[in-house]
């Protein structure tokens, strides 16, 4: 049976991860390639890189990171942040990423989803959704609204309607981030996650709020998520991915628990 996926997320600025990892042994690493290799060996099912570089040569810096990761890491990984058109997508995919994540770019221009799916296949296109809870209204019947600019700008778009539209345009997966839960470490948004996951036929990655293994368990059971995005819970060494997976397994969640020794050194 299909395993639930555990996906660490790395924010990258100017070719360095913004948070670094502090392991229990207290080693600090800020190189995204090193971190990716560490998580690969720890049993991550996939890795997400989110580029938050603001400078003008951002593309070249990130492409170099992607290329180096692809030489070393033989699991799928995705890249998001600032991908505006088909050419940006092509460059990232050719450098070795398996998937591209598009977020506010898709809200501004939804054709990027259909064009990307047509050019590279739906399996490459992840729709990133930043969502906030609002009053239910005619315009926002689900009570969840799409936001951009880190949650500062409301778009007037209903989150559920947008998820369905993106699926019909050819998105292959949704990464669903609750701005309300993000950074709280109080758990994933467990009303939003099943609302979206049960109403689309593509996989949904829950994002935002993970502070404990119980939270991840809830995302898979109550939240009906197909995968869970995690960040500080592993970056700061609270748990290793292996510990998370063993605990989930003990609680009856199907996860990939063995990945063997690296053959490539």
């Amino acid at each position, binding site marked *: *049976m299909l395993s639930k996926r555990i996906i660490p997320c790395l924010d990258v600025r100017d070719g360095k991860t913004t948070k670094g990892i502090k392991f229990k042994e207290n080693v600090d690493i800020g190189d995204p390639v090193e971190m990716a290799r560490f998580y690969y060996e720890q049993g991550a099912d996939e890795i997400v890189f989110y580029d938050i570089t603001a400078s003008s040569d951002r593309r070249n810096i990130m492409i170099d990171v992607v290329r180096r990761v*692809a030489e070393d890491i033989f*699991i*799928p990984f995705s890249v998001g942040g600032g991908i505006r058109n088909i050419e940006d997508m092509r460059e990232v995919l050719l450098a*070795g990423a398996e998937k591209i994540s598009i977020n506010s770019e898709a809200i501004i221009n939804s054709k990027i989803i259909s064009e990307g799916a047509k050019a590279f*296949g739906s*399996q490459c296109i992840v729709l990133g959704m930043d969502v906030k809870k609002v009053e239910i209204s005619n315009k926002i019947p689900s009570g969840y609204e799409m936001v951009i600019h880190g949650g500062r700008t409301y778009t007037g778009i209903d989150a559920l309607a947008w998820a369905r539209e993106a699926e019909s345009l050819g998105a292959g997966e949704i990464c669903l981030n609750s701005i309300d839960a993000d950074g709280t470490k109080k758990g994933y948004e467990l009303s939003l996650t099943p609302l979206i996951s049960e109403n689309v036929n593509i996989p949904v990655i829950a994002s935002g709020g993970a502070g404990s293994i119980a939270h991840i368990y809830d995302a898979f059971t109550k939240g009906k998520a197909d995968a869970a995005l995690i960040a500080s819970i592993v970056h700061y060494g609270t748990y290793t991915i292996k510990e998370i997976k063993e605990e989930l397994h003990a609680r009856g969640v199907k996860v990939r628990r063995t990945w063997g020794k690296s053959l490539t050194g």
Partner: protein
Amino acid sequence: MIAIIDYKAGNLKSVERALKKLGFACRITHDREEVLNSERIIFPGVGAAGKAIADLRHFGLDKALTQAFKEGTPILGICLGAQIILEKSEENNTQCLGLVRGDVKRFPLPLFSFDNERLKIPHMGWNGVHLVRRHPVLEGIRPQDEFYFVHSYYPMPAADQYIIGTTDYGIEFPSIIGHKNLIAMQFHLEKSGPPGLRILKNFCTWNGKI
């Protein structure tokens, strides 16, 4: 030299990178002669069956693959490459290469797991393989190993003798098929971590005999 068949379908570079990491020389090519002169052939691919077959024909690679298969060259199909070796596909009703008798089928909808959970299409993520027979290319693979899948269609050979491994996703479908010097996997070896690389490495030293 290992030929990675280039017919403009999907991520050939990741296969090339994996081979390079394992220390095997390879070339991405759509040249008929080069394919026929290579020691072994990898036939990857993502995308739609109809377009893949049209592109193969355009380069004359359909005939080259058939000839290489008859000559005993070890051939490895990956993902779409594990589908279009059959006779025909339900995907746009496509006539395929016919190296193995059988069809390519779409997962039925709605699809439910054995504990009655609704399953999504495509089948995307990590899943196990139940090995139903031994094969030199699968040496060292353990029952608990998992592999990375992304697909909405699956290969269904006409006879059980071609099925080497199966995977459970609502239905039990053939995920590894083999026939003589040909072996093919529905999952992405090049994205499946060490167990995937192990299979790739085994293939690179396989003489094509079972």
